[in-house]
């Protein structure tokens, strides 16, 4: 479709081909979903610390929040695909978001089966990957 009804869009996409302009919004979607995922994943450590100190409610919150974090990670993966596609951006976010999604899935399995000895180190790794990915989405996309 043509772009005249979107003032400013032309300038933003000017360096690319005028036929199939690249879009900026997938980059913003990636930044926001990735940031949200990183925050929710870091919150998992907060809730874990709380139930480790005796709060049973925090264990239930840790379980609930795992679902929200998984959803945010899935949306990050979708955004990363859009960045590479309609955004004509880099492909590395797809690799990072896929890796993160696998880690979160693994964490849910490890958590529900009570394999704490693996759950904790994989959790630390998950948060590291999420934070590094998020910083890159703000600087390198």
């Amino acid at each position, binding site marked *: 479709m043509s772009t005249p009804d979107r003032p400013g869009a032309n300038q933003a996409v000017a360096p690319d081909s005028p036929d199939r302009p690249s879009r900026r919004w997938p980059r913003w979607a990636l930044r926001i979903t990735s940031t949200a995922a990183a925050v929710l994943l870091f919150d998992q450590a*907060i809730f874990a610390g709380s139930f480790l100190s*005796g709060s049973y409610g925090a264990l239930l919150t840790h379980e609930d929040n795992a679902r929200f974090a998984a959803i945010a990670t899935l949306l990050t993966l979708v955004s990363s695909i859009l960045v590479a596609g309609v955004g004509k951006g880099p492909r590395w976010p797809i690799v990072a978001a896929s890796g993160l999604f696998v880690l979160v899935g693994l964490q849910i399995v490890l958590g529900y089966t009570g394999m704490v000895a693996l759950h904790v180190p994989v959790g630390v790794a998950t948060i590291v990957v999420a934070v590094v990915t998020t910083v890159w989405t703000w600087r390198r996309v």
Partner: protein
Amino acid sequence: MSARVTRRGFVAIGVGAGVAAGVGVPLVLTGTGATSTGESAKSASRPVPLFARAMHVPPVLAPSRMDASTDYYEISQEVALAEILEGPKTEIWGYNGMFPGPTIESRRGRRSVVTHTNNLPVPTVVHLHGGHTPAESDGYPLDLVFPIDRSYMNMHARTSAHDGSSADHLVAGDTSEGSRSYTYPLEQRAAQLWYHDHRMDFTGPSVWRGLAGFHIVRDEEEDALQLPSGDHELPLMITDRAFDSNNQLTYPSVDPSLLGTPGVRAEYVGGVLGDVMLVNGTAWPFLDVDRASYRLRILNACNARRLDIRLDPPDADLTQIGSDGGLLATPIRHQHFELASAQRVDLIVDFSKYKPGTRVTLVNAYGDGDMGKILQFRVGERSQPAYEIPDRLSSISPLVPANREPDRTMRFLAGNVNGSHGWVVNGLPFSPHTVSAAVSRGTVEVWRLISDFYHPVHLHLNPFQVISRGGGPPGVFDAGWKDTIDLRPYEEATIATRFDGSPGKYVFHCHNLEHEDMAMMANFTIS
């Protein structure tokens, strides 16, 4: 150009604020952790004035009959009205219609036979907590005493059970119709025991409704110390409860009939805390005391709440002379004392340290707001010389060397019980058919206990000694003979027990009563 910078700044501030809120809010809300595992039920009753009503001490029950070796008692378990709060009376389930029930006092080695008659709507089981009692009178959770009037039971058919075996396991126990005589040999040290309901799946709501009382054992060793007695010996049963707008007890049972599905609603699976503090069945009472030494025999009978007891102002020490299993070897001076559910502490407090007219509050440093207060002592004019606490109270020899390796490991963890959140011991929910430890009579065993949340672990039949906690020596509140240990989150402790007593099957369990009802219980046998 400057507009661009401003926009970028906006974005940075927005994202920064979002991240700060996303991390900061959970940190502030949950980052302080918890001092008890449980969720507070919210009362709808009118605000309860603090220290407005006098505390009472439960009456001592007279034997109905005595012979050369035995005292005989009769107790009727019944629905009654109690004055817990100002205003409308509260319906309770009480031993002889009282909450707490009447106190039984026994001499060491003199048998008590207590005949309980069930005039309540549901089955009951009586357990003498801390009693060295043969299996047939220990109140095994399936040894039900059925009500005299079964009409309520007949209205509500039981629908489920922890082990998925439907209702058939109900008849597995040694049941009785209407009443049962429990025989307590009481061949044990002087100690503050307590009796309470112990029915499988429904102990929490039954105790919450009032089924708990003291049973005090005395002996010559204790007599010789001439401890403060009479009005100066105060058994204090501390319980937290919640009430509706009509002053009636509320408890978040899944099935309020207490005959079907066990357990509490999901948010209370960690335990049920109350928001009104009772001492001997009166909300936030006061007590007039002399300027003299008192013996405070405190029981934490809360379903799930841990207490950290202090005096405010703290002029007098809390001098501990005893624990669950009776006198310590030597007194220990404390400024505060942590007490988990079912634990007892025997304290000497010298109120002559305070000026006449001082109001001394027994506080709970683990409570927020009013739950941080328990009882107010009003110090009078009358003065008596302070009790001189002897340096030696009793003798306790260690059961095992401190470095002995554990014989068994028992893990008390959250787990799946019939597809729901619950609590398990070594991965298994309670079943009357599973034996976790088969022990030969007279054997001393060291058990390693491992927890995830706060779990006050209680062994029936025999007291134990705490050998280690967290890989180090026992804690300052672990001294003497215990029957309940306050395991903290992700803590490991070892305890040593001599498995004396009559052959049979007994339970050990978490004494957070919601954890117990949601299957954190297991069997040991003595052969």
